[in-house]
């Protein structure tokens, strides 16, 4: 598999570029939207939440930002990833290339977009005076866990969706539910003990909490949990690849 991907590395990199550039093609501001999107989204939340929600957090905007931006990375990648095979049906039907390049380039372009958005986080950490801590060196690890996890999910969803188009709508609902089941707009410490099992079972809770620990609380994240999740994600990715490889044989006929 890796040999094939290496041979097609140029296609992989051009399709990642295409994914990033194509998204903003025909818009005036282009790639700047990768900055502006999270910034504007944040302004909306910053205005609304202090009014409707009395939060004990000392800096609610940053509290939100450190979780919401990684969350957006997750949702956009999953929603785009699951429709990527269908969206590229035209090429798939006519040219041979390793099909797994499509989901991989969606997840990778999502990652690049996320890294650009991270610049916004860093700038605001400085402006708001929260600053950086030594735990920042764990940030790449959290990002890696999320990346591998997303690869597994997207490999499975992108191939299954071809045969079961409903999945797009089902996953839409699941993502919405997951948003409230993940400590994004609230803090884990405000959750009653008896509901904590929900977060133990939610992989995104580990990841989001990891980002928030490293960036906002500036404390040691739950490394044990994250390592566990990394192992699970690696297995998920391998299983996902098998599923994808099995299902891809009939893509051209189903599309």
């Amino acid at each position: 598999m890796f040999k094939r991907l290496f041979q097609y590395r140029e296609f992989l990199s051009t399709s990642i570029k295409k994914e990033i550039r194509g998204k903003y093609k025909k818009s005036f501001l282009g790639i700047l939207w990768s900055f502006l999107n999270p910034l504007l989204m944040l302004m909306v939340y910053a205005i609304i939440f202090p009014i409707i929600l009395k939060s004990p957090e000392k800096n609610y905007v940053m509290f939100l930002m450190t979780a919401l931006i990684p969350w957006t990375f997750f949702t956009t990648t999953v929603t785009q990833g699951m429709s990527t095979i269908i969206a590229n049906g035209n090429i798939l039907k006519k040219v041979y290339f390793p099909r797994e390049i499509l989901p991989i380039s969606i997840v990778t372009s999502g990652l690049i977009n996320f890294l650009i958005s991270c610049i916004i986080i860093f700038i605001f950490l400085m402006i708001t005076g929260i600053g950086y801590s030594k735990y920042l060196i764990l940030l790449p690890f959290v990002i890696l866990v999320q990346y591998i996890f997303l690869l597994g999910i997207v490999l499975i969803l992108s191939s299954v969706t071809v045969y079961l188009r409903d999945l797009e709508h089902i996953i839409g609902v699941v993502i919405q539910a997951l948003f409230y089941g993940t400590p994004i707009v609230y803090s884990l410490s405000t959750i009653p003990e008896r509901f904590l099992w929900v977060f133990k079972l939610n992989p995104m809770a580990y990841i989001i909490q990891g980002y928030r620990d490293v960036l906002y609380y500036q404390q040691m994240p739950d490394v044990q949990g994250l390592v566990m999740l990394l192992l699970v994600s690696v297995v998920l990715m391998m299983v996902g690849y098998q599923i994808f490889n099995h299902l891809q044989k009939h893509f051209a006929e189903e599309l």
Partner: protein
Amino acid sequence: MTKNDQTEEVAIEVCDIDKTFKVYFDKANTLKERILFWNRNRHEVREVLSDISLTINKGETVALVGVNGSGKSTLLKLMTQIIYPDKGSIHTYGKLVSLLELGAGFHPDFSGRENIYFNASIFGLSKSEIDDRIDDIIAFSELGSYIDNPVRTYSSGMYMRLAFSIAINVDADILLMDEVLSVGDQHFQEMCYEKMMDLKKQGKTMVLVTHSMQAVKKYCDRAIWLYQGRIRMDGSTEDVVKEYLKVCG
């Protein structure tokens, strides 16, 4: 002959393949439909290819001929690995490039030049390899200054020129082509055939689908006549074309 010798000689090996397509009358695609109308998934299994076995040697130029719907394009798609056979196996030896449809994989908003990079990378070329070839590709396409215009502004002839120029310049060992040349003008078609003769001299293998019997006779060493998903005749161009024209002409 040892196995090793064989792989050196053979370019494409098709062993006893069957391919069927399911033709749905009213396909239940969504979960709701699948549950509510589980019995609605009536489909007809249509046999597109059956009992196809053939070996194409390195350096051969083979024409696939036959009426519409005889399975020529399906056979090419199977060789390209876009679809997979139900039974049997296909092996190809060497780098394979196929030109199944005009400008497959072109991104309409990108310029011709950007599309060269994109398209050639689909064929597995690295950036530096494309850099080396880009001048040849642009020169062969004769697109001149149009090369920097978005591809959506191209005419179908220009599309074909670009697609063909890329496919022919990626140094494939095997080239599969599905009736794409007919869009080009006389001059370009001749250029293409000339270039193909060049490639042939270099020992490349080519499989063409075409309805132009003149081209078959002029450029191919061997013709395979498909009829209703089976090989009806396989032999020298001369014989096959004569038979074919007798029956279908």
